[in-house]
């Protein structure tokens, strides 16, 4: 407790000194999870190493994408008490794309545009009341244009 207060005080001092922007001092970003090169490692770092397959997670995305630079992925969790959703593209160099925490007042829904290097499974892991659930969907990435 003391230590935490000390840290916060330190951060506040840095903010006052103009060395850090206030948001920067407080925001958390799970570097270990985002630097993982496999989805298994990323999920371990997120604290969700195993998850049960669930039809309660709906992934809406095109089956086939015209370009991997932008692949729209919409995720809805119908599992009661869902508080977080993680989106992973299995074959990306760093599979974890995004993780959202939903508090009172937000529905467990998100739509994002993701980059995909190649055809891959997209995995979504939901956390609800301390349990983890998952669903996957394959998205085929194609090559278009002259390639110049």
């Amino acid at each position: 407790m003391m230590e935490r207060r000390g840290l916060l005080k330190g951060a506040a001092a840095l903010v006052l000194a103009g060395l850090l922007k206030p948001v920067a001092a407080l925001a958390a970003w799970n570097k270990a999870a985002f630097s993982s090169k496999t989805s298994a490692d990323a999920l371990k770092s997120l604290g969700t190493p195993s998850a049960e397959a669930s039809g309660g997670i709906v992934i809406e995305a095109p089956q086939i994408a015209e370009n991997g630079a932008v692949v729209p992925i919409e995720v809805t969790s119908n599992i009661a008490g869902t508080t977080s959703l993680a989106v992973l593209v299995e074959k990306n160099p760093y599979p974890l794309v995004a993780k959202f925490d939903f508090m009172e007042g937000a529905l467990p829904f998100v739509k994002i545009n993701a980059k995909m290097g190649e055809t891959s499974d997209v995995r979504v892991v939901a956390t609800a009341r301390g349990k983890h659930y998952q669903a996957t969907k394959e998205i085929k990435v194609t090559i278009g244009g002259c390639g110049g």
Partner: protein
Amino acid sequence: MAGPMKMRATLAGSYTDLRVLMTHPMATEQQTKGQPHFIQNLTVKVNGKTVIEGEISQAVSRNPVFSFRLKGGAKGDKIEVSWLDNKGDTNKTETAVA
């Protein structure tokens, strides 16, 4: 300097539909020879209270667009979305539910 942001919040029956657009290069390690530049955190607040916190990676497409859904909601509710990138740049935008 951060480019424009745009947000729209509209009542859609039992929930409020939120759509946010952000100007950002979202440059990957590969594109920048090891100097990636991307948004890492985003926060959605309703009337000052945080309802969504997101952590995102360089695999989110350039000029990110997000859709969220907020429980209930009423005309005039104040929505604020802010982001922070890996170089410490930030931006935020506010709108009222229409």
